């Protein structure tokens, strides 16, 4: 069974600093997606960034980038120039890409990130 582990339950950084959130996963599959989701205090979850396992290039979205290490099964999120609005719960997630019934998203337990003024 696939698992997603986020080893940092909570982090705090000063505004404008760079922060990296860690995520590791376990799977025997070779084709899959990885995601980072953001859940602000209002609780509406939004997708931050998505990575296809077959792509070697790390995904980036403005201030958000990932470090995808497929062999190490590691998928960290880097937030540059952090802003107060980045304060949220961040979930790392994994999804198989086999077209089967078990192609569900599996979420980690999350990292609560506080951006301090």
């Amino acid at each position, binding site marked *: 069974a696939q698992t*997603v582990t986020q080893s940092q339950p909570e982090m705090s950084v000063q505004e404008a600093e760079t922060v990296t959130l860690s995520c590791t996963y376990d799977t025997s599959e070779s084709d899959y*997606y990885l995601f980072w989701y953001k859940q602000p205090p*209002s*609780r*509406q*979850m*939004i*997708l931050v960034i*998505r990575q296809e396992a077959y792509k070697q290039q790390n995904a980036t979205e403005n201030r958000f980038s990932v470090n995808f290490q497929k062999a190490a099964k590691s998928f960290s999120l880097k937030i540059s120039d952090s802003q107060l609005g980045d304060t949220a719960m961040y*979930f790392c*997630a994994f999804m198989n*890409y086999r077209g089967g*019934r*078990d*192609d*569900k*998203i599996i*979420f*980690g*337990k*999350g990292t609560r990130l506080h951006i301090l003024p």
Partner: protein
Amino acid sequence: EAGVAQSPRYKIIEKRQSVAFWCNPISGHATLYWYQQILGQGPKLLIQFQNNGVVDDSQLPKDRFSAERLKGVDSTLKIQPAKLEDSAVYLCASSFGRDNEQFFGPGTRLTVL
């Protein structure tokens, strides 16, 4: 574009009572998901619909939970009877297809006393 709508936003019930949650997905989204998010954990998929058919309900406690998606649009999730451990936020999400981005609703926070 309107997002995923859910109601109610909050619900408090006593154990053994019944409760129902409603979800209206984004227009045109064929795939609809219900997740359970217990405090301090990530969301867990309960059931996934493709149009009005069930794709995956392997993690749905079928002795007490039921869900339907009539006409392939709105969906309801019901719990009958509720237990204390059902206290959680119930999230609905929708996507154009199974490989497309999921858009989440604001969730329904259920407290079972």
